[in-house]
């Protein structure tokens, strides 16, 4: 380690030597940084799960443009839009086809008495271009009344149901006092809104959700003519449709808007964002305490180095060296423990809490930045190192 750091810095690694000299302090500091990393990772993990579960339903549907009620917030938290706008949109140049999309939350009581809910999508099964390619071939099987495609990653789903679906058999269950038969499956998983998902024909959907009307879907999905830009068609639709009633977005725009809404306007997004901030703050305070104490403990040595002719950049280098070492040493255990907790949380809740390299890199860079910021604050104490006091 000494040789590596000497080679890296082109001088004795004073910061590392100081830190490693006080093992107890080093362990406490690394544990502190790791804990702060853990806090941030957990908040980001849950926030990521929230984001993932927010956009997960988009994995089931397909289309170029989505028309929604301007009062709606997200794909699953939408108002109703008049189906008449679909017909109006079909008359706009560049629009090739469209379907109404119905979304509802179907409560389901399991055999053991527990309840789960399924986020249900009702689609026109004759137009497979509006669902994800992986489920498009199975749509034909939904022509029969009361048949559904069931999410095999649904939380608390009975093992026998999953076994039936895995072998290609059907599985029958009761919901809303009616019998449904799962004739196929897909894998999406539960989220914050529901325990799993279900796709059915619009006819079956309307039968199960008695209060819903075919003329008032949740969204309208549109396909544009091959070779025509979605953005161009969006502009035309916005000019054609009443802006105060209909929101016109491309699918990527809708997905991004959903994420932004959850992050900035939903209390959950704000709470988790605040949690990340608190984690960073804890890390800053811990590293500052360690570094400032270390500077205070070595003032006499620093004053000696000043007398010898070492300049301010040298001392800043020592403090930043310590900050970077703490950042790296704290990040590694923080990452490992976080991955373990992610896996545990995933098993217990079924939430899509997963560690990805982008998040790990983001937290690592954030840790480096936070530790450097703490180091920068701690360097103020260096001014107290006066070589004249040595005599």
């Amino acid at each position, binding site marked *: 380690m000494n040789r590596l750091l000497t080679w890296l810095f082109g001088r004795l690694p*004073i910061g590392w030597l100081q830190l490693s000299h006080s093992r107890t302090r080093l362990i406490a500091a690394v544990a502190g940084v790791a804990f702060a990393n853990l806090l941030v990772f957990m908040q980001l993990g849950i926030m990521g799960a929230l984001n993932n579960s927010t956009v997960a339903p988009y994995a089931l549907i397909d289309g170029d443009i989505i028309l929604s009620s301007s009062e709606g917030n997200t794909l699953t938290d939408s108002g109703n839009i008049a189906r008449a706008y679909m017909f109006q949109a079909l008359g706009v140049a560049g629009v090739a086809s469209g379907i109404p999309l119905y979304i509802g939350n179907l409560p389901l009581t399991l055999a053991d008495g527990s309840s789960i809910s399924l986020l249900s999508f009702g689609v026109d099964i004759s137009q497979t271009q509006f669902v994800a390619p992986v489920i498009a071939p199975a749509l034909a099987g939904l022509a029969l009344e009361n048949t559904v495609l069931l999410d095999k990653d649904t939380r608390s789903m009975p093992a026998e149901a999953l076994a039936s679906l895995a072998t290609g058999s059907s599985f029958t269950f009761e919901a809303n006092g009616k019998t449904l038969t799962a004739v196929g499956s897909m894998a999406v998983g539960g989220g914050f809104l529901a325990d799993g998902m279900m796709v059915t024909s619009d006819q079956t959907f309307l039968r199960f959700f008695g209060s819903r009307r075919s003329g008032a879907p949740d969204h309208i999905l549109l396909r544009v003519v091959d070779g025509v830009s979605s953005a161009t068609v969006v502009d035309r639709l916005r000019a054609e449709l009443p802006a105060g009633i209909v929101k016109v977005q491309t699918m990527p725009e809708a997905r991004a808007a959903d994420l932004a809404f959850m992050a900035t306007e939903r209390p959950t997004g704000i709470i988790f964002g605040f949690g990340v901030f608190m984690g960073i703050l804890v890390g800053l305070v811990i590293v500052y305490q360690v570094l400032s104490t270390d500077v205070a403990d070595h003032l006499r040595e620093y004053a000696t180095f000043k007398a*010898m002719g070492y300049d301010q950049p040298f001392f800043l280098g020592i403090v930043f060296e310590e900050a970077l070492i703490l950042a790296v040493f704290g990040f590694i255990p923080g990452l490992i423990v976080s991955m373990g907790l992610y896996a545990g949380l995933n098993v217990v809740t079924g939430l899509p809490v997963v560690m990805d390299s982008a998040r790990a890199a983001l937290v690592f860079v954030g840790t480096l930045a936070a530790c450097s910021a703490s180091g920068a604050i701690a360097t103020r104490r260096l001014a107290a190192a006066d070589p004249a006091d040595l005599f």
Partner: protein
Amino acid sequence: MGGAAPIVAQGLNHYFGLGEARKQAIWDLNLTIKRGTLTILMGPSGSGKTTVLTLMGCLRDVQEGRVDLLGHPLRGATEAELVQLRRRLGFIFQAHNLHESLTAAQNVLMGLQVHGAGDAVKQRHAAAHMLGLLGLADRMDYLPANLSGGQKQRVAVARALVSNPEVIFADEPTAALDKESGRVVVDMLKTLGQTRGTTTVMVTHDNRIMDLADRIITLEEGRVVKDTNP
């Protein structure tokens, strides 16, 4: 030794405190220290000898009068200029001030690396050679906590001398050493003066080494009361 005097003080006054608590510590000091000499500053506690040492060693701001060190006026010098000057000096402190996290060899290396990274192998050899001269060849990899008081002081001497400074400022460098070790150190300083022209200014009360001094200056209440060439 000839050549320009490395240290010249003229009309030097120095004060501590502010307002009514302001107290003058040095009174109209005029000194010229010749190159290659070993000068001892003596005097009772509070006589101002340490203040003079820190003023000449550019560790304290010159308030009134003039101090020229190695041809550079210290009054009004920028921090960058002072840093460059300090790199041409060697300091030996009474309380050795070794870095507790560094081994003896690493502490000595710090005296070299202030001039830049340089050739690491050569630097290590120079540090080892200097420690060997001071009888610490077998203690190079020891941390200060595992060295005796005398050994620590010798490491501090090695750190000060390893970069061949032009002027050495020492504060009671032999206080923690036995007579033999103390003479080895002061003999070394004396030899450096004779062979390389290194100038040494030393505060000491150690009567065992007075015979090695080229000049003994006695201060009392901030004034020179005696200046002899034994």
